[in-house]
């Protein structure tokens, strides 16, 4: 029983990482209207930046903040260099471009940080025991970071003028423009937001496991699965689906083994989509 509870905590943690990555994907999909395959490598870049800054300053918090800023900067730079020029092109053209962007980010990360795996230097802390279940204090901290990140994203989306504009563009880009909304300003905000959320996910993942150049790319499939499961373009759905998939994956590992862990996500995804084609939270109003 306690082993199972510990698995579940582990599942929740990886679910939060998947959920944040899915949130970044779903934000870009809802507003810029394509699946951004560079999300994973933005995670990686954020993790490496955080790792080296926390190494230099001795503070994981400072490292994480700088990592998130780096993610935002990467998002905005990529927008200006690539996706701004592809505006109005098909979503397939944008997806292909984003795969190229992913490779470029990974190459740059490889050149700057070298190809070895690295770990965050965290002080070793004895786990708490609550009802005989081991709980890592760092897990609690990471969960708090995830909740704060989510709260910030939702505050921006639902309580600021730029968030309102982002939701308007997600609803109807043409109507937004004739309402005087400049797409460029909205896109800058979107890419900064999605980039920093990706980076936070990368930093969390790096702290839980190890930092490698492939870590983000490996997270891409589960994150896409969660974004689709949650109802593409639906922020709350992405988070819930991420947590659900992460938890199911970890809890199923003792039964199906490590190799098939990822397959479980897709079995769940298939079953849900058969019952609800628009995802858990998606509105049933056709393609969106």
């Amino acid at each position, binding site marked *: 029983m306690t082993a199972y509870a510990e698995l579940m905590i582990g599942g929740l943690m990886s679910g939060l990482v998947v959920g944040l990555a899915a949130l970044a994907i779903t934000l870009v999909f809802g507003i810029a209207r394509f699946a951004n395959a560079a999300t994973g490598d933005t995670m990686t870049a954020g993790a490496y930046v955080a790792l080296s800054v926390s190494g230099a300053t001795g503070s994981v918090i400072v490292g994480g903040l700088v990592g998130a800023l780096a993610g935002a900067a990467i998002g905005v730079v990529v927008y200006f260099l690539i996706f701004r020029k592809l505006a109005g092109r098909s979503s397939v053209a944008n997806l292909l471009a984003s795969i190229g962007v992913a490779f470029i980010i990974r190459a740059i990360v490889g050149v700057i940080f070298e190809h070895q795996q690295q770990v965050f230097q965290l002080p070793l802390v004895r786990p708490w025991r609550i009802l005989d279940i081991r709980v890592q204090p760092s897990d609690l901290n990471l969960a708090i970071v995830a909740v704060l990140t989510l709260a910030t994203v939702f505050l921006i989306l639902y309580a600021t*003028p730029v968030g*309102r*504009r982002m*939701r*308007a563009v*997600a*609803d*109807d880009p*043409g*109507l*937004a*423009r*004739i*309402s*005087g*909304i*400049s*797409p460029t300003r909205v896109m800058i905000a979107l890419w900064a937001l999605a980039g920093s959320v990706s980076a936070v996910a990368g930093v969390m993942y790096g702290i839980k496991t190890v930092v490698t150049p492939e870590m983000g790319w490996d997270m891409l499939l589960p994150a896409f699965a969660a974004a689709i499961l949650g109802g593409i373009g639906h922020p709350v759905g992405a988070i819930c689906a991420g947590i659900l998939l992460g938890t199911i994956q970890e809890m199923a590992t003792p039964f199906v083994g490590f190799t098939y862990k990822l397959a479980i996500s897709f079995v769940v995804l298939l079953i849900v989509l058969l019952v609800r084609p628009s995802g858990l939270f998606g509105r049933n109003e056709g393609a969106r």
Partner: protein
Amino acid sequence: MTILSIEGLKGGYSEVDILNGIDLVLREGQILTVAGTNGAGKSTLAKAVVGLLPRVSGSVRLAGKDITSLAPEKRAQNGIGYVPQVANVFPSLTIAENLEVVEGVQDRKARISEMFRLFPALAERKRARAGRLSGGERQQLAYARALMTRPRVVVLDEPTAALSPALVADSFARIASLASDGTSILLIEQRARQALAISNQGAIMDGGRVAMEGPAAELLNNEKAADLYLGHYST
């Protein structure tokens, strides 16, 4: 004074021209009705005027200024308002947010209160999502959204099409009063007789061209227009 002039306007969504050379003039404070059969290109003309048609040639001038190559958001800031035929509100935003999100509004708070005074039904449901409104309420919100910027020209694309018959007369009355307050209106309507009845000028489109045009009263009494486009029933 001419507020909107369209000259030799051609264009479409891809390589195919849907508009085949349109010339029209709207004078300040007047209503110009554009009627025509389904697929004549009326909505396409509206999109070309507000800047949403991907490919255009010819010219569109607003108060003498050439706006043909301006982005839609710039045209909005220059004084063009638009109520599309369908999808004319942001469904996932609340009523209040639909108005707050509009850019280029001077004294936004006061303007929103004004809109709620003009459309009391909206004021009662400020926090409701626009996607949940009835056809009539949605129409009112679409007007309010378009009027936020105090536009000089408003393009209305079939404003009565989605309304229940009981609301149609109200809608035309509202359009007429908007014009009497000085707003110039490009009114696209299938209910041509009722629209012409409140208009100064009229035009009938067919196959991406203006087939007939003239003062609204003349068109209403024109035998050929009645034969071909308006039908002979009286309103």
